[in-house]
């Protein structure tokens, strides 16, 4: 990629470290709630254009999508991509009874995203000593929206994958920040490094 990351190397390392910690906490939260082991990937930090973001979301085949905005000291959106496979096992862990209705599945998806995105964001905000409030998640159909028409050029993306060990279920959480929040975060990172 020819685009220069808006973070310098030190900032990037610091953010990476903070993400590692907060994502770990998020995984623990979910593990605690559904009493099963959860693996996480190493968080990825990158800068993407709208079309790259679109491609990033569609890396998982046959997926459900949700989005959720957050406000506070930093603003942005969290998009989650959930695999369809293995969802039934997760539903069982979450105390849902079979057969699952369409509404049950939607509710499970929304709840999973809310828990994981919430935990990730809370962890990150804690580390950065920023206040954030996550709004409610909604189901999202990226294939129906036109990413090429989006107003922004580049956005900072933080991505992490959660895998539930006993089923084939996996879920990716993608954080995107707006420009203003990026500046604020860089300042905060500098303060921490300083």
């Amino acid at each position, binding site marked *: 990629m020819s685009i220069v990351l808006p973070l310098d190397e030190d900032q990037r390392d610091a953010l990476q470290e903070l993400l590692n910690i907060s994502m770990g906490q998020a995984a623990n*939260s979910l593990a*605690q709630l559904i009493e099963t082991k959860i693996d996480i990937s190493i968080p990825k930090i990158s800068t993407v254009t709208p079309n790259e973001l679109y491609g990033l979301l569609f890396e998982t085949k046959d997926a459900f999508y949700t989005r959720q905005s957050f406000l506070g000291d930093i603003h942005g959106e969290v998009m989650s991509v959930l695999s369809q496979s293995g969802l039934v096992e997760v539903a069982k862990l979450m105390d849902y009874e079979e057969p699952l209705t369409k509404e049950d599945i939607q509710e499970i998806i929304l709840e999973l995203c809310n828990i994981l995105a919430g935990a990730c964001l809370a962890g990150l905000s804690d580390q950065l000593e920023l206040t954030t409030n996550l709004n409610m998640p909604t189901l999202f159909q990226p294939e129906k929206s036109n990413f090429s028409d989006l107003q922004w050029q580049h956005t900072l993306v933080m991505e992490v994958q959660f895998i539930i060990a006993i089923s084939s279920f996996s879920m990716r959480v993608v954080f995107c920040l707006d420009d203003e929040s990026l500046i604020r975060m860089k300042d905060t990172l500098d303060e921490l490094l300083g």
Partner: protein
Amino acid sequence: MFEQLVSKLPVGIGIVDEAFNVVYLNDFFLDRLPHELRKDYKEQPVTELFKGQGKFLKRRLKSVFVLQHPSFSYWEQRPHIFPFKSSRPITGEETQMYQNMEIIPIKDNTSDRKLACIFLQDVTAQASYFRAQQKLSQALKKEHAEQRKLIRKLDTAQSQLIQAEKMASTGQLAAGIAHEINNPIGFVTANLDTLSQYASHLLAICDGVESQITHFTEEMQEQMQSLFESNHYALLKDDITELIDESSEGLSRVRDIVENLKNFSLETADGYQNIEVCSVAKQLITLISAQYAKPEYKFECAKEKLEVIGDPGTLKQALMNVMVNAAQAIEDKGFIKLSIIENDNDIAFKILDSGCGIAEQNLKRIFEPFFTTKPEGQGQGLGLSVAYTAIEKHQGKVSISSKEGKGTVVQITIPKSPPQSFSTDNSEPATEAFSK
């Protein structure tokens, strides 16, 4: 002041502790509680107070206490968490309140106790509006589908009209031409007959002269001999009968074709009548083999004569269209076999060809009007759709199976006599398209 404000807010606010016991409910909740519970709701588990969705509430509250993170629920997935009536008991259409819920973790400032705050929003108006819209959009979709169906029907009807019109005009044309050809053929045949007699007379004369040649003078003999030789009499004698025979055979073929053409085009009697299918089939083969000479034609039928009741015009047209397709499928060498099989109540026409076959993706569309794989200008894509309609009109069935490069089998089954009514508006023949 804040306490008052919170109690009067138009959203439900309820606070529970870690044992799910109620610590506080605002007026929104209290107004909707049954009378007997209004006095002593405090310190009761919220899951007992509102039993219906107790399990769900418990799960969500647990998640909030464990994760210290808000939880959401929407009316779309779970419309009625708390068993509250709609706010319009008299005029409202919805009887139960549609709810959005949010549970957020809070902390008691004085005791540092972990609490959860339940926000409940009445979204009945929104939900009923949304549902009305959904109903509307479904109705629209249905209507749209019906219209499309209608358009398809119209399309089919139009194409049939076009085809019928075309058939009528080509029929008239063919009848006219047939009539015109018949006249000259009549006198040519008669003349040829006479010519054949004259030729035999002439030959008899020449032969007579030849046999009596020894009675002439030597000079005369020589002259006669050279006359015979210069006119190639031996060859002429051999050839002339053959030529005339071939010509009258050719003429009789022309007469057959014209006759068939007339049979096919002069179908004026509209309506159902007895049709003798074996002779129809034979006529058809003669007619088609005149135009498509390459394939070898075979005909098979266990009986000499078989009858069905039907409309001769459309039925012949249907068979013709299928046969023509079979003939066109054969580029160089191959065969077409038309078999007629008699069953208890129906008669099946099986048309088998060893032609190029139909690609699987096209098989489903072959009965669509205007669907054709021929190059532009060479086919209207109407043949099989017309056949389909004709078979439909006879309450029959048509099935096709084909393998590319191997050939195609079309089976048309027609009831021997049409069941009950001749009306055909709603009947659709069962078609199946499958590949071997």
